[in-house]
C-alpha cells in the first residue's frame, strides 16, 4: 500500500509525452483524455490505397462482451469494401498471449492494428514496438500506458464508473450505506471503475461505504459476497457494481433473503442484468461500456487513419446512462443474457453468431 501511494505521488511528473503519467481525473472525467480529445493527429504518413489488411486483436469470445465485439468487427469489415482482409486475433483474455500476437503481427506486417488491449500495462511496450515498425496501432476499448498509439477510441471508462456511482448517490439523496463490488483485483477495468466509484462517493460525505469486495465478474461469487456483506451490514441502501454481474448476484441474494432490493448503480449492463432488473423491478442507473459501438467506431477510425484523414488522439465515444424508466429501450429479449447492447448490427447477424436466446 505504501508502494502504491508512493506511485501516485511520483505519477504527476511534468507532462512529458514518454508515458509514466497516470491518467488524471477531474470531476468524473479523465482530464488527460479530454485534453487528448482536442489533439489532432496527422495520419498522412499512414496513408495507403485500399483495400487494406487490418489486424484486430481482441479479448476473444470467451464471454458475451468479447463475442459481441468480435462479431461487430467481423460484420462491419465484411460490409466495407475498403477492408481487404481482416486478421482477427483473439487473445482469449491472456495478456501475455496478446503481446505475443503483437510481436507476430510485426512479422506479418498488416496495414494497421486495431487493438483491444488485455492490459493497460502489459501491452504498453508492444504498442511502441509495433509503431516503431511502422504499423499504425489504433487502441480501443481499454487504454494503454505511454500513449504511443495513433489514437485511442473508447468511452471514458473512468466516467462510466464515476457516473454510475454519482447517480446512485443522488438517488439515495446523498446519504446512506452502500457497498461496492468489483471485478478481478488488478485488472484494469475493475481498478479504474473502483477508483472512479470511490472518488464519486467521496463527494457525498453522508454516504458510507460499508463494504468493498472483489467478486471476479461472477454472478455466483457476487451472490456469495453480497450475502456475506448483508450479514455484516443490516442496512444496505445502495449497491454499486463495477460490471453488472455482481449486481445480478446481489439482486438474487436480496431476493432470496426476502429483503427489499436496494438501489443499484452499475457499469456495463448485460442483457441478463436488464432482464432480472425488470423481473425484480429494481431501481438502477446503468452506464454502458458498449462493445458493439466501440468496435464499430474503432474500425471506422482505423480506416480513416489508413486513408490519411486526421483523427483525434482520443476519439471519445459517448456513453449515455439509462435507468429503470427507459429499460425497455435497452433490453433485447430476443438475445441471450450474455449479449451486451446496444444493438449495432442487424438482428440476423447476432442470431447467426449464436447470441439468440435459447
Amino acid at each position, binding site marked *: *500500500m505504501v*508502494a*502504491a501511494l*508512493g*506511485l501516485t505521488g*511520483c*505519477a504527476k511528473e511534468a507532462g512529458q509525452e*514518454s*508515458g*509514466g503519467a497516470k491518467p488524471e481525473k477531474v470531476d468524473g472525467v479523465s482530464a488527460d483524455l479530454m485534453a487528448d480529445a482536442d489533439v489532432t493527429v496527422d495520419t498522412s504518413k499512414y496513408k495507403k490505397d485500399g483495400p487494406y489488411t487490418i489486424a484486430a486483436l*481482441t479479448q*476473444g*469470445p*470467451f464471454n458475451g462482451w468479447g463475442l459481441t465485439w*468480435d462479431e461487430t468487427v467481423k460484420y462491419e469489415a465484411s460490409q466495407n469494401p475498403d477492408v481487404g482482409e481482416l*486478421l*482477427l*486475433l*483473439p487473445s*482469449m483474455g*491472456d*495478456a*501475455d*498471449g496478446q*503481446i*505475443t*500476437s503483437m*510481436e*507476430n*503481427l*510485426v*512479422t*506479418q506486417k498488416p496495414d494497421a492494428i486495431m487493438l483491444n488491449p*488485455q*492490459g*493497460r*500495462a*502489459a*501491452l*504498453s*511496450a*508492444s504498442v*511502441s*514496438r509495433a509503431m516503431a515498425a511502422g504499423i499504425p496501432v489504433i487502441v480501443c476499448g481499454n487504454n494503454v*500506458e*505511454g500513449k504511443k498509439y495513433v489514437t485511442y477510441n473508447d468511452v471514458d471508462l473512468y466516467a462510466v464508473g464515476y457516473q454510475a456511482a454519482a447517480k446512485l448517490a443522488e438517488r439515495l439523496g446523498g446519504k446512506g450505506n452502500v457497498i461496492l463490488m468489483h471485478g478481478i*483485483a*488488478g*485488472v*484494469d477495468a475493475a*481498478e479504474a471503475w473502483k477508483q472512479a466509484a470511490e472518488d464519486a462517493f467521496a463527494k457525498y460525505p453522508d454516504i458510507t461505504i460499508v463494504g468493498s469486495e472483489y467478486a471476479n465478474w461472477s454472478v455466483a461469487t457476487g451472490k456469495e459476497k453480497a450475502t456475506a456483506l448483508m450479514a455484516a451490514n443490516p442496512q444496505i441502501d445502495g449497491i454499486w457494481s463495477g460490471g453488472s454481474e455482481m449486481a445480478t448476484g446481489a439482486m438474487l441474494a436480496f431476493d432470496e433473503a426476502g429483503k427489499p432490493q436496494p438501489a443499484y448503480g452499475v457499469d456495463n449492463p448485460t442483457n441478463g442484468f436488464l432482464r432480472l432488473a425488470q423481473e425484480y423491478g429494481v431501481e438502477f442507473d446503468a452506464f454502458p461500456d458498449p462493445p458493439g459501438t466501440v468496435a464499430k467506431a474503432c474500425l471506422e477510425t482505423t480506416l480513416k487513419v489508413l486513408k490519411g484523414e486526421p483523427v483525434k488522439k482520443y476519439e471519445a465515444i459517448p456513453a449515455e446512462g439509462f435507468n429503470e424508466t427507459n429499460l425497455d429501450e435497452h433490453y433485447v429479449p430476443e438475445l441471450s443474457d450474455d449479449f451486451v447492447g446496444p444493438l449495432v448490427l442487424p438482428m440476423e447477424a447476432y442470431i447467426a453468431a449464436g447470441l439468440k436466446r435459447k
Partner: protein
Amino acid sequence: MTLTLAERVARTRLGPPSSWLRRNGAVVFVYLLVVVLYAVAASISPAFGRPENLAEILRQSIALGVVTIGQVYVLLGGGIDMSVGMTARVVGLGVAVTMGATTIPPILVIVLGLAVGAAIGLLNGVLITRIGATPFIVTLGMLGVLSGVALAITDGPTDVVPDFFFTMYDAAIGPVPIAVLVFLLIWAAAWFVLNRTTYGRNVYAVGGSADVARLSAINVHRTRTLTYVISGVCAAAAGIFLLSRSGVGDPGLGQGLEFSSIVAAAIGGISLYGGRGSIVGAFGAVLLVTMSSNIFDFLHVNGYFQQLVLGAIVLVGVSVYRTRGRQ
C-alpha cells in the same frame, strides 16, 4: 572366471545396452512434433517460415523457458513448484515499483529481485524439507500468499521502466535478439549443471530415491531446497524479463506460468515423480507450446478452438508414449 556366466545370462536376456531410443523416446517425439508442426505451418503460411519469425518464437519462449528450467530442477528433485507464476509477478511488480520510487541503478534492482526470488524459493524449500510438508500444497499456499503480496504492491499499472529494460528486450545482433542468445546460454548452463556437476547428478539421485541418496552421503535436504531456490531465481528472472517485455509493471504478470511450466516439463519427458527425464526434452516442449500459439496467429485459428487445439496437441504430446510410473 565364472562371473561371465551371470553376465552372459543378463546379456541374452536384455540385449545390447543401446536402448537409447526407448529411453529418449519422449525427447525425440517432442522434437519430431516441433519439426512437423513447423513444416506444416510454414507450408501454409510463408510468413511463418521466415527466419525472423523463428527468432521471434525463441524470444517468445524465454519467459516460459526460464521458468521451466526451475520447474525441471524441482521436478527432477522429486518436488513440484506451484508458486513460480506468482513469484514472477511479485518480483516483476516489485522491480517496477522500486524503479519508479527510487533511484537505485537498474542492475542492482534486478539483482535484488533475483534475491527475492531466491528467498521465496528458500522458504518453499525449508518448509518442504525441514517440516516435511507436501510440496504441491506448500507451494500452492505460497501461490495464494504471493498473489496477495502482489496486489499489496500495486493493483494497477506501474511506471514505465527505464530504457535499460527495453534494451534488454530489444537489443539484437542482426536478426537475433541478444535476449535469445542469453536465453540459450542459460539453457546450456542449466544443462551443464544438471549433467556435469555433482550437484546436478545429486538432484537426479535425490529425485530417484531420497533414501538411497541419503545413504550415499548426499545431503538430501540441501539438494532439494536448492532446487526450489533455483526455481525461485528462474521465476524471478522470468518476471523481470516479462517486465521488460511489457515496459510497464502489469498486475496480471506471470499468470498461469505454474501450469504451463509443469505441462511443458511433462511433455518434455520429465517424470513428475522425480529423478528421470532430460532438460533437452523440456526445452523442446517449451518450443512446442510457444510455437503452437504463434501458429494460431499466423493461421488465424478461431478463438473458440484455440484452447481445444492446444489441449489436443498437449494430449498427443504426453499420451503417445507410456511414461514409466513410480516403482
